[in-house]
């Protein structure tokens, strides 16, 4: 069985946020909601200061604490590794948000006025996006499950997420974590975020 995951090569990341916006537009997320984003920090001191880029999102953990704390089973893990939220089962208790060590989840408070609340008529794009919103539920990265289910589009023979496809430097490699290509990266020193949490994330980072 395929075990989907991602390797993020920090040597390639230029912090451009193309992934952030590709995700936003594909999933029509609300203002202030970022299922993925690039965190930028300043390291060192002048004149030896530099920027450090760290893309983050749901890690689709092997041992997801968010799933364990969910009282209704709304958060579930698929056999192919994806951790998803069943919006119909979510009761909005937000235990999962508190439990996630990566702060990767957002809550839909019901304000669906979108990017132009001052304008009465919504744009056709935002109207279309409203179809998937459920007030009072938790949302997060889906690893573009629709693309995986449709097995399209394919990059190097594997369905690819919007963030991995868009990356202009190919810093994100999406695929089967058990494949030789992904395992090679892991052996080269790719690490999981917050191993102390024992969540066993399916996203790895190749250090600079």
């Amino acid at each position, binding site marked *: 069985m395929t075990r989907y995951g991602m390797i993020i090569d920090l*040597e*390639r990341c*230029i*912090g*451009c*946020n*193309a992934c*952030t*916006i*590709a995700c*936003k*537009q*594909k999933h*029509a997320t609300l*203002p*202030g909601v*970022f299922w993925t*984003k*690039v965190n*930028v920090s*300043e390291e*060192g*001191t*002048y*004149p*030896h*200061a*530099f*920027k*450090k*880029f760290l893309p983050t999102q749901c890690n689709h953990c092997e041992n997801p604490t968010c799933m364990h704390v969910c009282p209704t089973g709304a958060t579930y893990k698929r056999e192919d590794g994806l951790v998803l939220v069943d919006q119909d089962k979510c009761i909005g208790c937000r235990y999962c948000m508190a439990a996630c060590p990566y702060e990767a989840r957002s809550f839909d408070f019901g304000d669906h006025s979108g*990017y*132009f609340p*001052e*304008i*009465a*008529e919504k*744009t*056709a*794009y*935002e*109207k*279309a*996006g409203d179809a998937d919103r459920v007030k009072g539920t938790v949302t997060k990265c889906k690893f573009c499950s629709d693309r995986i289910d449709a097995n399209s*589009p*394919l*990059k190097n023979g594997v369905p*690819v997420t*919007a963030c991995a*496809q*868009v*990356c*202009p*430097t*190919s*810093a994100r490699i999406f695929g089967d974590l058990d494949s030789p290509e992904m395992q090679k990266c892991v052996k080269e020193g790719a690490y999981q975020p917050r191993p102390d949490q024992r969540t066993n994330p399916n996203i790895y980072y190749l250090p*600079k």
Partner: protein
Amino acid sequence: MDATKVLPTTTRRSFLKGSAALAAALAVGSGVTIGAAEALAETNAGGENEEKWVKSFCGTCIFTNCGLEVKVVNGVAVEVRGDLDHPVNQGTMCPRGAAQLMNLYNPYRCKVAVKRTNPEKGLDVDPQWQEISNDEAKQIIFDKMKEVQEKDPRRLMFMYGFGDTLHESPFTKIFTAIFNTPNYAMSCGPLCEVHHAPTMYNNTFIDRVDVGHCNYLITLGRNMGASAAFASGPSRAMANAWKRGMKTVVVDPHCTNEAAHGEWLPMRPGGDMAFVMAMARILITEELCDYEFLRTRTNVPYLVVEDGDYLYDANGKPLMLDEADGKVKAYDDPTLVKPALNGPAEYEGKSYDTAFDRIAAAVEVATPEWAEEKTDIAAADILRVTREFAKEARIGETITLEGVTLPYRPVCLATGRGAANTMQGMRTYLVADMVNCLVGALGVPGSMVHVEWPKFEVDNGVILPEPIAPYLEKQTQAFTIPFNDYTGKQFSALARFPVLTTAMGGIVDPEKYFLDYDIDVLFPIGSNAFMADSSRDLVVKAFQKVPFIYTLAYSMDETSMFCDVLLPEPSSLERTQCKPIEEIMTADLQSMRTGGLNFKSSPVELLYDTVQYEDLIIEMAYYCGPKTSANLNMITSGFFKLMGTPYAMEPTKKYTWEDMLDRYFRATAGDEKGLDWFRENGHWTYERPVEECYDYCIQGVGRLPLYNQRDMMVGRNLKKNCEKWNVEQPGWEGRMDEVYAEYTPVPEWHDNWLTESGDEFDMFCVNWKISPRILALGGADENAWLREVCEFLEFDDLRIQINPAAAEARGLKDGDKVIVESQFGGTTEGVLKVTGLMRIDCLGFPAQGGHVAPDMNPVARRGTTYNQLLSADDGNYFTESGSISIASRVKIRKADK
């Protein structure tokens, strides 16, 4: 100069209230123009999901190359992704490309045609728009255009910028020729001084770095792709190079995204010339040069006379000393074996230096310690970096690519706008390319190479963009008082673009600029000089004076506010458009080899009743009479290289834009690949041979102009013309010697207003592009997603950056509201961000914000207005090029609470 003076006093709410017609025009929820979008939404409600993917290409950077696919569900575009089959972007996009749906579905777009009813014009004046039909708007415009054609076509001025159509439409480049006017202006010209050196060294409009092979890259104020995140190849090539181990040294007042992957040398603004001169000196004095390259591929062995010109023989041919037999010979003498790099050479009883001697003498002053004083970069670092650069140049090595063996010089000193647009910037770029040439790194794998197919014209054995005699003759012909055109190129003799100060100043006061006629009609398109340039007051006065201004508007921006008639324009994704594929700036060999054509047409029914630029020009040219009709057909035919093919256009027939595209496609891609083929496939590409990618293979016997005799002759010709007509360049009255001094054949350092100190302006302001906003292309300033990323995620957000030590010394802290005032009187306000990524004597302004037009998306108004800290005033812009300095000296103070 003072931005605060021109801020509108009305609020958005009161402004709209006061103009019912405008509210209708904007149709913000009014339903007047939603039309198509609403109908589509209804279809969606029916539950039938009709889904399709439509091929397109991007419109959000300077030279858009990336193929896209747009997902349309029930008539609504819901997703954009890179085209995985497109060899250029390979499925990727930059953040701007990814955000295009917000450009399409921007509720603040101009949606209907309007005319102003308030004759008064200003940034704080309500135009009192009245909605009219597209037909009525066109009739008004066409009548005015016809009238000016009949009266004096010179009274028409065209003005363009990076806004939308610049590099997409043929009619932007050929507009003036179609409508018989010499007058055009460019809002994107003054801060884009990056074309002269590439023209001289690579015979190309823009150069690019072959980072696919480069191992040691020094950037001087140049964005290599990472900071702008170009998805068409530059970002990928840079990431691959870093993985391969390329060292990057960023010489810049600001620690860029590229510096995060390399070394940062924080340089004082304006010090660039000193840095490159010091590099040249080290390479020459430590004998680290590629002497074979210098002898055979450059003009430095030419002998020079005392006044700087070449030494010529009786036939007018430049002379060289042959080391093989000690004789002085013409440059093309077949017996010439080994041109000497050093003199003296004896010729007809006199002794002469070589050009190389002159260059060596000119940089003698530039010791690393001298350069440290100017740049604030440690002498030891300048020495170290230069030695590493020379070592990594691998002088003598070759590389074989696809069977083609070439010199291998995997190093590049890459100059960009940040350096070229500071004082002495044009010459800095030339000297930087000279440094590249000193180690043989120009036009070969790993170095700086051409972009467009270069002509490589050779004059006296030297590669020049144009042979010098006809060039000077042309300059002289244009220099007749009164001037025939508003370009200002008569005085700014090396200007690539019209001098904006002259174009705008000429409108306000023609006599001052030696002009004897007025501008009656102005057509700005994709152009916003109120934001993109400094000296806003001058632009306001010019726009107030022109009797009739019209545009195609996507945005209700500052330019739109000054128009008499507006027609609504399609968004980038909605246009029927094509563009040749050509990677720029940064590339690997695969990108360089890829050529072709991109095509797009709207993936959805046009949201509004918009008029595309090309359709307007065609209709207008045919309306104005047989001359403009013939111009349109014949010039377009020439531009698309249709002449002599079965697709050539006839002067008297009428064509549509789609007819023209179909002919262009068939003539370029083959008869079977017409418009229908492109509608289905989106793009067509081909692979160039390696030989076409490197100048070294195609420049033939021409030598590179390290010794800049050409520009020196241009300066002398300018002096001759000025003295003949007894005129002085406006702004330089009484100090024309400073003007002529810029036309020097060898590197020279000139003190200037940026390097002065001792007054209260104790800091510099600096500015750079960020990935969500470069040049406001593709409607970036109003794009809700891009602005959100700018404000909440980018390190380079809307705040003004200051070094921790500088903040402490001034009692300032993170979050303080401050006022920055420049030496030219311009001021801007902002909020401080304290960061060690900024030089200690600089204030950093990422990108540009602070629109003042009240009807734009309010997010566009946030942030600081940078350009008003600069000056394009006469006497302050760069005399030789018409460009302006991107940095000024400034002072900062805390704003009153």
